């Protein structure tokens, strides 16, 4: 079994390759946030923070925190040159209006239709959806970045059993085992991690997987 940190690094590195110069991207809390560390230096990605600005930069040095500048997780951050601030209505107008090229989120479950569940476990965890429902509906491309299984149980299912965040909005699933595209025909395994077999991916996935004729090894 590979190290948790390595798993996260693999996922974040692979997601980072999805972006092209000038893309506007919203990264969810947790693992998705780490994607920013692996974006190619020649590629300028503009990060949108749904609490109200574009140009999200890395965490400040200790002692240089600005009490007025946090990300959507409430953590102190910095702003890149050329950043711009706005209110919550404008922030979500930008998101819902399709002005964000991609959003990267974690998931509890994803399914064959591209349905996503990531905001509550009834009777257990009801934190609220925050901005996730709008992000998943509004962003041009929805990338789920998550570990392939949870305590060994598949998270990529035939049908989500948890309450949905949004229906049929996921475009791409990136895990430490591979890259799966959501298509009209179902889930297509496009890339597979080095040292992993197709059989292993299938075994760890409840959903039917269509194996791409052009299956590639995940580039990291």
């Amino acid at each position, binding site marked *: 079994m590979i190290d948790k940190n390595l798993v996260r690094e693999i996922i974040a590195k692979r997601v980072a390759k999805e972006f092209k110069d000038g893309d506007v991207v919203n990264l969810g809390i947790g693992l998705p946030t780490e994607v920013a560390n692996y974006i190619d230096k020649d590629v300028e990605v503009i990060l949108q923070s749904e609490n109200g600005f574009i140009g999200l930069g890395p965490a400040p040095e200790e002692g240089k925190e600005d009490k007025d500048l946090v990300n959507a997780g409430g953590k102190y951050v910095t702003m890149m040159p050329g950043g711009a601030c706005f209110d919550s209505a404008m922030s979500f107008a930008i998101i819902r209006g399709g002005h964000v090229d991609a959003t990267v989120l974690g998931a509890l479950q994803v399914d064959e239709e591209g349905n996503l569940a990531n905001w509550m476990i009834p009777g257990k965890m009801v934190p609220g959806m925050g901005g996730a429902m709008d992000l998943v509906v*509004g962003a041009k491309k929805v990338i789920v970045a998550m570990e392939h299984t949870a305590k060994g149980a598949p998270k990529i299912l035939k049908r989500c059993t948890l309450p949905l965040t949004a229906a049929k909005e996921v475009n791409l699933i990136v895990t430490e085992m591979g890259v799966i595209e959501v298509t009209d025909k179902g889930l297509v395994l496009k890339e597979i991690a080095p040292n992993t077999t197709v059989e292993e991916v299938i075994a760890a996935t409840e959903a039917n997987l269509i194996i791409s004729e052009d299956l590639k090894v995940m580039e990291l």
Partner: protein
Amino acid sequence: MNKIKTIDEVMEFIKDGQTIMFGGFLAVGTAENIVDAIVKKGVKDLTIICNDTAFVDKGVGKLVANKQVKKVIVSHIGTNPETGRQMNAGEIEVELVPQGTLAERIRAYGAGLGGVLTPTGLGTVVEEGKTIIEVDGKKYLLEKPLKADVAIIKGSKVDKKGNVWYSKTTRNFNPIMAMAADLVIVEAEEIVEVGEIEPENVVTPHILVDYIVKGGER
């Protein structure tokens, strides 16, 4: 017209059972001094509209922790375990609203619109009990306007007429809430002379603000 009051003076407008909107995102951009004064006053049965319930010891979370709130309309309660505990104990009602929908519902009231047609929440529990409207073959949820008796706003710079400028991410829900309440009170981190905020850089025009309270930095 002098709009500047002390915190004690504006407390007369805060009463049991009111619906109050508070700006702020995880307490950043929340009028902490006014929240403290409301905690001290101890009014009860409030309905709070805010992005989230912040933390037990910060932002509107303090009102929840002090059991002054009967209902919250928010997008997130995960950072304040007390909200979840009271919800599970049946002590507080929680209406969860997607963040963008919450913003548009508040804006809709402030802008005199009858509601919002949004694709957000379609196919989820959010659509339960709501009207679905089809426009040119696409489906949308009809989400209704939200208003409040009082909006409590936090401004970074407020001029003596009541024009407001917000620093960085403190803006969030403040400007739209300033349009959606019968009474608008702004806590000013700094009160400046009229003219110090350029007309183009005013975010909340003074006509929307009823009272200004000096807050100071916290």
